[in-house]
């Protein structure tokens, strides 16, 4: 049973560029959340997708956008990259409607903006 998979694992981009990160949820999961983890910090919630719609959003600018596909996989897009966007981006999947849902995380995408 494949867990949460993310691609790519590492990425280097230049300021001002755009980037797309991808996530396939754990089998049977229908909800995907994205988190940004800066060095020395805990993961920070970006947004959550359920039934192909953004369900919740954290305190991130509109440069961060996403999408969920009918097969529940998801993309995170970041436009006009800033140096401060350099971080580990984590995708987590879960199953909606559960009383005590545990979110399962992927290994993350390390984004470096130069």
């Amino acid at each position, binding site marked *: 049973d494949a867990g*949460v998979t993310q691609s790519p694992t590492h990425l280097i981009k230049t300021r001002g560029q755009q980037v797309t990160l991808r996530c396939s949820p754990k089998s049977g999961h229908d909800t995907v959340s994205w988190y940004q983890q800066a060095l020395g910090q805990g*993961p920070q919630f970006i947004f959550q997708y359920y039934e192909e719609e953004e369900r*919740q959003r954290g305190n991130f600018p509109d440069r961060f956008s996403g999408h969920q596909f009918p097969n529940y996989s998801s993309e995170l897009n970041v436009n006009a990259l800033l140096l401060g966007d350099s971080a580990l981006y984590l995708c987590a999947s879960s199953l909606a*409607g559960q009383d005590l849902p545990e979110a399962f995380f992927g290994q993350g995408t390390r984004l470096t903006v130069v």
Partner: protein
Amino acid sequence: DQQVKQNSPSLSVQEGRISILNCDYTNSMFDYFLWYKKYPAEGPTFLISISSIKDKNEDGRFTVFLNKSAKHLSLHIVPSQPGDSAVYFCAASEEYGGSQGNLIFGKGTKLSVKP
């Protein structure tokens, strides 16, 4: 304004002894709490959780205690093993639309278990 705080950045424990990791929160609407373990170059791995209606949950060597009046929870690992060395994150969430909402994480505590 941090809603979930882990005030100890690091903790060092001898193998076989108890490790106690602490976490405080400020949002009284949180109703679900989780602990994750993270090794370098890997994503966080779910460890154990507790609902706000309970004050203790145990799973093998891991026990989580919740004190709602103090807005405090702790993770006990007994006995500690060298393989437990990792960064431990405390996370909390509140109900959203009938399901659990997004997770709010602390900054983590790096546990080192020495042989």
